[in-house]
């Protein structure tokens, strides 16, 4: 096999793997959008805080890391995150087979996608209103 062929085969494998990861992220996004309410606070800064807090803890739980529950706000994030992580594990059993780097990659992609859908790509004109 020529070098060029090997490269193109590698590229195809990477694309397939990316495709597979995209599909996984889409499935998780769909799950969140149909079941959860935490991502829909009324202002962009609130959504950013919610997405970072809850998806950050979800990642920690999926990776088996310890979670900081020292403040009421953290505890409230953890409640949503714990239910989300449980839901992910039971609805999408393939998560249990993933390595830690794969989970991290997936959660990075999911966070970017939820931020896009609820903040950066959102058509909601009230997100930038300064007061509640």
């Amino acid at each position, binding site marked *: 096999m020529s070098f060029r062929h090997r490269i193109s085969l590698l590229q195809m494998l990477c694309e397939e793997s990316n495709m597979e990861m995209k599909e996984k992220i889409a499935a998780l996004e769909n799950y969140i*959008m149909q079941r959860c309410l935490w991502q829909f606070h009324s202002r962009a800064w609130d959504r950013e805080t919610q997405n970072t807090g809850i998806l950050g803890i979800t990642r920690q739980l999926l990776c088996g890391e310890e979670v900081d529950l020292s403040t009421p706000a953290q505890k*409230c994030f953890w409640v949503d995150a714990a239910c989300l992580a449980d839901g992910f594990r039971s609805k999408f059993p393939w998560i249990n087979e993933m390595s830690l780097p794969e989970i991290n990659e997936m959660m990075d992609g999911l966070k970017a996608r939820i931020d896009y859908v609820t903040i950066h790509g959102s*058509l909601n004109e009230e997100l930038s209103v300064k007061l509640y």
Partner: protein
Amino acid sequence: MPYHTFKCSECLPDRQKHAVIKGPGEDITSCLPLGNLNTIPGTITERGCAYCGAKHVIGTPMKDVIHMSHGPVGCTYDTWMTKRYISDNDNFQLKYTYATDMKEKHIVFGAEKVLKQNIHEAFDAFPNIKRMTLYQTCSSALIGDDMDAIAKQVMKERPDVDIFVCNAPGFGGTSQTGGHHKINIAWINNKVGTFEPEIKSKYTINYVGDYNIQGDCEIMTDFFQRMGIQVLSSFTGNGSYDDLRSMHKADLNVLECARSAEYICNELRVRYGTPRLDIDGFGFDLLAESLMKVAMFFGDDCVAKAKEIIDEEVARWKPELDWYAKRLKGKKICLWPGGSKLWHWAHVIEEEMGVKVVSVYSKFGHQGDFEKGIARCGEGALAIDDPNELEALEAMYELKPDCILTGMRPGEVAKKIRIPYLNIHAYHNGPYKGFEGWVRLARDLYNAIYSPVMNLAAIDISKDDFDTDTGFKTRTMLSDPGTPREELHTEHMYTGKMDIVTHLRGKTYEFPAPDKPVTDAV
């Protein structure tokens, strides 16, 4: 953008961005109507005014209060008794409605004197009631009566009373949503933090954004209390004025209707650091997860009790829900509420009752509500913001739904074209919250869709050519055609009681002792 233009609104360019169809592959970044904008003059909107949103949605469910409108009698009278927000003190807040009865002469000469006189008269007439809310209307706002000053004078003269002033005139917003906002902010600015509650449990919450329609709030409060959680206040269904002054003391704000009450939760979070947890009180699956979330916030003892409640309730009511789901499968519904049920129900009603939501709308929802609703509903759903009567009619003719879930005004219009409607504002036979409540909703939906009257009403008796030899068909004959009688009774439809709320009143609960406050050791 997949905007939908109604034929009847082709002449109204301003309506072009108020309806969308969720097509294949669409999400809320490509499919979202405008929302919370002024209604176009001339269209027949179903919205209410800001005064109505403040007083009749949020203020009046408070149960131990005289709710006085400072304006013409019509403002309060025409919106009286429009919602069944019951209470455990013999429905005091529903029995009476109060207005200062402003006339033209007051517009010219001012109405502060008549306001003060009315406040005194009302307190004299109900000597056991020591709390009052005062609502501005368009008339009193336009002439600039200083209601706050009058309230202060009366409180000075009667030291045992407390009065809350809400300046939300009818014109103060695009719809009732303007009033929701104003009363939320006025309450936290003026009343929260002015009363110290008795803390009975280690775990305390405010239950926010539930108005106790036919007992919804009491059903949820019972769950929380069985879990060992003290509900310090309920905003505002079956809520007590003084309890609501002590909202700052709760550990957690549990929020149902974010449309009408997220403002106060957000402010409580900013000012007092109380977290906000959004939940769904409807549907088996989402409700179970919501109860678990609240329990998890407090700890393992709470979680064990929540699990017990969920297991017991699901075992008792799931078979009866399934009875209805089997017969409702594939039926098309339009989910046309005022605000939050748009997203509370959009997905779970399809999942658990088998119906197909073909359209969602909101009268006063903001774009954020449509984001939630459109994210949760399926492909092909038509989402409409602030529809007018002609658009709603066109949608019904186009979509041919089996039932419309909406309020009384659009519901009566639906009946005229022989589409049954279910009242999801004041409810037909609620409560609809809780596990049993969800079965009651399924029962009411079944009764609406399979009502024999819909067939009979379709017969044009002005002509002689209709069949006279076909018999009357019952609901069961319509929903289970050809099924032998003995097989019909192997499963059960709803077997609960007519009144499932009254027995909860007076129940006692055990709470874990609150932590003692930290004091300086001697």
